[in-house]
């Protein structure tokens, strides 16, 4: 039957939302209640992009009148705010818990494609175990066979071959022996990919048989199904990604093409990536597009988005398919931000039965979601790493993702977007900074260093490329070492060459026409004022003045999905140096919110959460909210979060440019963490009104000297503290106040470079390292309160009254960074007297610092005395947790307070006392960072957090453990090895565990104490004592949980392999006595009773 000649006789020219009988029937009507699974805590490979997608999804579903049931253990998400779903379960994401939620809620359908790999894995588990069938829950967005076909590498390979596409030669195996045979057959290098893991966990490249053996063993151990895929290496091929959408009518589009700057062999999450693809001709691009559409059909994605990765041989254009993700992903978040096309929202609508032509493009209002975005700019994403936190980690980039965040920048050219992205990273570089000093160019050691820097992929490689070009390396040569496409290298080369043009102005008047022209062109290439200033040996302010004085100012262009073909109605803007400005300044009262830039350890989603609340509050109060941020993973950079979005670096220059254009009423800096805070004084000096607590007060709290004076005046106590500017001074202080000491540079977030030292040697070692870290800023030397209890308080002040948001008691003792410590709200062991005293001191401090907005204070309690450790008159990392605990949106209230509203008028005048307990637990990235010690200390290492809510502390703690994927054992053998000061404290815990039926093995010293207390113990060797030792037991699966506290560097070193193997085999381990005690209580509670689930909406009702 001929398709076209049988066209309808009566032509229906209506094109949207209608079917033949003229009835509007876009969505399925049989689905009234949908369950959504979030991605849980932020971990490497799964970050706030899933809050972005999940939030979009919740909003889209609610607008359709569908009842939304959400499960997510991460309290720092916007999606878990009570108004985004009808029922929000902040509960562990685990098949048993999800089953309980399903049993309680009886949803019609489960949408598993918004919560990353976590949600997808849960869907598979719930389907395999028959739960979905039992409760009649339909899987929407992706079918189970589709998920399996896409995720199981063997099935995927078969599917690709079926549709005539090539995949790298590969084999899937469960055994090491078979793996060895395969490797001998195909030769090295070989890629090892464990099945069903997240962010490529355990994936690696082996270059020889020895490496191969180790890596296969590791890969098998981290795969939940104990299988690995061994793959022919396509190292050095070009890597591309396509973001695809397909609906139930087989309409399929490409939302965005992405080209990786880094070639194959580096996880795409760790690669610099560029949109759109740059080095494909149309013929090659269309072949890739066709292949992608075929893949969507073959795998069976019927209503949603997918990300498909391809590798292309640069020599002959051969193309192979690498993998696909049948869900929204980090790349889809990037693609959404890069194009303005809201993938998660559209995917959600497709899942409930819409087709692409029925969904209107919000930006143009004129086009449909079936219109393929086209872009008229270049987007560059650069990952953000945290290797400075993990000195033992190998910073070589491989197929296992290691980055903790990313920035995106938009420019009209690659050069411009690359340089904007570099300065968005806040790594200290405002452009293609040097790694090598000019004077060192000609030494052979430096030559070797640069070649090594080119050959070995690392976060620094981009900068070594710059140095190599300055040293005269040819593009071809750099290409040979890096396999990076010469196209990118040439662009960088043009940037480097232009540095000389700029430098040639040294000593000349910058306001000459010729100089202005050079500066203008430099700005067009993305050079930062600060970088230009450094090339000219002058101050950033000088460049800024010359530039703005001569009309060299940026204009703002709109991200519109269509290359200006249609008018855009959403002010999603980026800067460039061209002629026409499209940013229309409104007549309304405007407030600018500075975002927190890239996620990193110590500054992540919690601050984005606060910024989003600030924006909501502004809109509620009738102000125009203007967001500036550079992090594509966030809700704050969704184009409909604020009235106006500037996707720009959060630097002085870029912020001031926007301020100059917008002349806002004020600026909000206290929600974005250290990034905006660092700018606040300069912005204020430039005449900008900083809303809320003044930068002066913030500075007073950060400056130790001034702060000490303040505390003395208020007669509040703090641990004896001094500042030292030299090694000698530090030693003198140490000898006066006595060890242990806690050392830290001033002005840091996340406890960067903070350490506890126990003797002079450690002190000297630290000072020599640290003074470099913080340059001329002094080092703070405090007496460390050994064994103290740490308390965190968040409060809000409107200038008249101060209301406590929450008092949190840390489970780990003081000395563990508060971001890494589990904590309980309300406190579980404090007397009323102490909580009253803490509240009193909080009020005094908030008043004294003239806080308007939020304040966070950390206290330590030792021997019933309250000490103040730190005061931050701004939003803290715990604001979302406290807000979720008490059911009050503190950041939103704080914003309104900053605009002049009073707490009394808003009805928040006294602390909320809950009748349930919430426990926050930190989630650590060690599984992704082989070789790193897992011991906790004053330097923050966690990437995310989860929350457990229940009626008792023990159950709330148990949930917090479960939510961080720590499976507390209910039977088995527990290993105990504790430091001397803990030996008496462990006895009741061990006794209790024994009573619950656990067996105990312990190292000699600990065993002696336990035996003496009448506890039956088996002695096991420490690793240094010879085999069989504790690690052997762990490897043999004989240990169900470990308790291991240590003192001193030697003991820490000796027990390192224990902690590492616990990570590898995912065995719960506790390195503090307090943690062990909480775990024991949780186990007891789990044995005595079952976990129940409650939506937060029900909890808040009872408050």
């Amino acid at each position: 039957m001929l398709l076209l000649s049988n066209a309808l006789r009566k032509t229906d020219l209506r094109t949207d939302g209608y079917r033949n009988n003229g009835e509007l029937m876009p969505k399925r009507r049989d689905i009234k209640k949908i369950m959504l699974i979030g991605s849980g805590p932020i971990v490497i490979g799964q970050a706030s992009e899933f809050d972005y997608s999940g939030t979009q999804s919740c909003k889209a579903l609610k607008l359709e009148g569908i009842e939304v049931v959400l499960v997510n253990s991460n309290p720092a998400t916007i999606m878990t705010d009570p108004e985004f779903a009808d029922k929000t379960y902040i509960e562990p994401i685990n098949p048993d818990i999800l089953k309980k939620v399903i049993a309680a809620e009886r949803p019609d359908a489960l949408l598993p494609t918004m919560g990353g790999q976590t949600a997808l894995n849960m869907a598979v588990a719930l389907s395999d175990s028959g739960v979905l069938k039992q409760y009649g829950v339909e899987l929407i967005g992706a079918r189970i066979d589709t998920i399996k076909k896409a995720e199981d590498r063997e099935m995927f390979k078969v599917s690709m071959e079926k549709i005539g596409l090539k995949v790298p030669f590969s084999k899937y195996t469960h055994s090491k022996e078979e793996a060895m045979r395969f490797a001998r057959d195909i030769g090295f290098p070989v890629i090892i990919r464990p099945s069903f893991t997240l962010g490529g966990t355990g994936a690696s490249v082996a270059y020889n048989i020895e490496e191969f053996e180790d890596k296969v063993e590791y890969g098998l151990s981290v795969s939940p199904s104990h299988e690995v895929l061994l793959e022919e290496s396509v190292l050095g091929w070009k890597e591309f990604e396509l973001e695809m959408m397909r609906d139930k009518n087989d309409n399929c589009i490409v939302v965005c093409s992405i080209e990786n700057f880094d070639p194959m062999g580096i996880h795409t999450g760790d690669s610099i990536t560029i949109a759109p693809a740059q080095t494909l001709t149309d013929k090659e691009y269309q072949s890739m597009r066709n292949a992608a559409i075929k893949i969507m059909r073959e795998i069976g994605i019927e209503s949603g988005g997918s990300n498909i990765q391809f590798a292309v041989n640069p020599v002959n254009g051969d193309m192979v398919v690498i993998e696909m993700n049948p869900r929204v992903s980090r790349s889809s978040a990037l693609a959404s931000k890069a194009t303005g096309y809201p993938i998660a929202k559209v995917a959600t609508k497709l899942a409930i039965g819409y087709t692409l032509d029925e969904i209107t493009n919000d930006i143009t209002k004129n086009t449909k979601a079936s219109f393929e975005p086209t872009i008229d700019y270049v987007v560059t994403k650069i990952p953000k790493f945290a290797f400075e936190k993990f000195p033992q980690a190998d910073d070589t980039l491989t197929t296992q993702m290691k980055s903790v965040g990313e920035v995106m920048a938009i420019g009209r050219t690659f050069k411009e977007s690359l340089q904007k992205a570099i300065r968005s990273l806040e790594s200290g570089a405002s452009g293609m900074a040097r790694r090598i000093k000019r004077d060192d160019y000609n030494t052979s050691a430096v030559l070797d260093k640069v070649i090594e820097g080119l050959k070995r992929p690392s976060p620094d490689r981009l900068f070594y490329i710059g140095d190599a070009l300055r040293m005269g390396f040819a593009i071809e040569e750099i290409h040979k070492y890096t396999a990076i496409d010469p196209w990118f290298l040439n662009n960088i080369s043009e940037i480097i060459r232009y540095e000389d043009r700029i430098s040639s102005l040294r000593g000349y008047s910058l306001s000459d026409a010729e100089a202005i022209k050079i500066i203008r062109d430099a700005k067009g290439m993305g050079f930062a004022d600060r970088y230009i200033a450094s090339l000219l040996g002058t101050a950033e302010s000088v460049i800024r003045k010359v530039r703005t004085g001569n009309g060299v100012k940026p204009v703002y262009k709109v991200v519109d999905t269509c290359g200006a073909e249609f008018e855009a109605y959403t002010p999603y803007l980026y800067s460039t140096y061209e002629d026409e400005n499209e940013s229309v300044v409104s007549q309304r009262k405007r407030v600018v919110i500075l975002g927190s830039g890239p996620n990193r350890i110590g500054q992540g989603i919690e601050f984005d959460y606060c910024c989003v609340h600030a924006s909501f509050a502004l809109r509620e109060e009738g102000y125009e909210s203007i967001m500036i941020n550079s992090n594509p993973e966030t809700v704050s950079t969704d184009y409909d979060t604020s009235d106006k979005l500037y996707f720009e670096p959060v630097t002085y220059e870029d912020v001031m440019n926007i301020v100059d254009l917008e002349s806002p009423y004020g600026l909000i800096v206290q929600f974005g963490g250290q990034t905006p805070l660092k700018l606040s004084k300069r912005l204020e000096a430039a005449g900008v009104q900083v809303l809320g607590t003044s930068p002066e007060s913030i500075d007073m709290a950060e400056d130790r000297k001034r702060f000490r004076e303040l505390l003395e005046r208020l007669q509040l106590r703090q641990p004896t503290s001094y500042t030292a500017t030299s090694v000698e001074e530090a030693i003198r202080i140490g000898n006066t106040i006595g060890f242990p000491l806690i050392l830290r540079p001033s002005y840091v977030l996340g406890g960067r470079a903070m350490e506890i030292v126990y003797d002079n040697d450690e002190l000297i070692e630290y000072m020599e390292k640290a003074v470099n870290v913080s340059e001329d800023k002094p080092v703070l030397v405090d007496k460390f309160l050994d064994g103290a209890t740490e308390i965190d308080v968040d409060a809000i002040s409107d200038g008249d009254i101060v209301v406590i948001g929450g008092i949190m008691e840390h489970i780990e003792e003081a000395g563990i960074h508060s971001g890494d410590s589990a904590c309980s709200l309300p406190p579980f062991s404090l007397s009323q007297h102490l909580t009253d005293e803490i509240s009193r001191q909080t009020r005094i401090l908030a008043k004294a610092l003239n806080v308007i907005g939020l304040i966070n204070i950390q206290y330590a309690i030792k021997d019933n005395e309250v000490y103040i450790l730190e005061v931050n008159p701004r939003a803290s990392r715990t604001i979302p947790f406290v807000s979720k605990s008490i059911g009050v949106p503190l950041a939103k209230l704080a914003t309104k307070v900053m605009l002049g509203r009073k707490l009394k008028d808003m009805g928040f005048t006294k602390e909320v006392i809950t009748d349930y307990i919430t426990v926050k637990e930190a989630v650590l990235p060690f599984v992704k960072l082989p070789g790193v010690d897992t011991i906790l200390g004053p330097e923050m290492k966690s990437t995310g957090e989860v929350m457990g809510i229940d009626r008792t502390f023990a159950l709330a703690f148990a949930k917090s453990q479960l939510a961080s994927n720590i499976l507390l054992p209910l039977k088995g053998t527990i290993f105990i090895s504790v430091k001397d000061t803990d030996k008496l404290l462990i006895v009741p815990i061990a006794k209790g565990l024994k009573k619950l039926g656990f067996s105990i093995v312990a190292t000699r010293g600990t065993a002696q104490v336990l035996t003496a207390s009448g506890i039956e113990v088996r002695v096991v060797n420490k690793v240094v004592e010879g085999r069989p030792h504790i690690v052997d037991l762990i490897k043999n699966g004989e240990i169900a949980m470990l308790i291991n506290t240590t003192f001193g560097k030697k003991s820490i070193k000796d027990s390192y392999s224990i902690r590492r193997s616990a990570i590898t085999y995912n065995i719960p381990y506790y390195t503090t006595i307090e943690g062990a005690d909480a775990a024991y209580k949780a186990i007891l509670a789990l044995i005595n009773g079952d976990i129940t689930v409650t939506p937060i909406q029900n909890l808040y009702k009872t408050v």
Partner: protein
Amino acid sequence: MAVLVLEDGSIFRGKSFGYRGVAAGEVVFNTSMTGYQEELTDPSYYGQILVATYTQIGNVGTNTQDYESDKTYLGGFIVKEYIDYPSNFRSTESLDSFMTRHNVIGMYGIDTRMLVRRIRTKGAMMGILSSFDESEEALKFKLGKQPPLLGRDLVTEITAKQPYDFDEPLWSLKDGYKSMHEKKNPLVAVYDFGVKRNILRSLVSAGLRVRVFPCTTPVGELLRDEYKGIVLSNGPGDPAALSYIIENTKELIASNKPVLGICLGHQLLGLALGGEAIKLKFGHHGANQSVLNMKTRGIEITVQNHGFAIKPESIQDKADITHINLNDRTLEGFVHKTRPVLSFQHHPEASPGPREAGYIFKEFAKLVYERR
């Protein structure tokens, strides 16, 4: 340096690349992010100056395969950034050198988005592009002397000089364009109004033999028995100016041979059926236009390059509408109610752009096979 002066008096100054010269024409923009070599060699652009909305052009150089005709037709090509460092395994020549060799004037370094927005709000305008140091007044004067686009027959200027056979199939990475000699395949005749080679290649790959005729060929020649189907190609300009071809088209429709019209060919079919052509404000030029297939209710992402369109109401009594543009609901395709005539405003041959409408050639081939 280079300068562009528009009909409305606006002036854009940039840098020059490619051929040094002066060219006047209608200034249009294309939103495709790939395929500039195909665009440069697309005869439909004859008499036009093209602005690329994508900002970096030249990335992949040019090569010996990505031609849509044997030369270029654009008068000028305006881009934000010209990249003089091609990187692609097929690249044999830089775009600058290619444009110089083919007499295409290039300008880069201007705010192309501003220019595009101006065209969008004011509509497609005539413009003059010069890479010489000429005064604005002189350029304005020259621009004023340009004949208007409406009513001009551009087709006879670029049609084939004599008939020729074409045997290249669609491109593949492995074989490039390996000639096909399938003597048993039915032969179709193509009226060349400025045909893109990918139309011919698509026909060959659909199992047809192809003979191309100058647009001035008497229609009787094409109506001979040996031609089992007729293709009316794409081409530049105003369809209403081509009255002699419209007359020929009426005869072709009446002949009962399968007829396929593409772009200008489609507009001519529309006019031959008594329809009405309108000039669009700034046309459709891009590779991402979503079109609704009225029969399947499926969406096709299509390639478009046209400034005129047929009003759907004007042909509805003779034809069934098969395709509608989802953005502005303009006519994208129809079939004749009683004759084997298929007609498409968009470019099913793609090149550059998505190939998913390529099934149309198979539909046409099927009609040809059924009736041979």
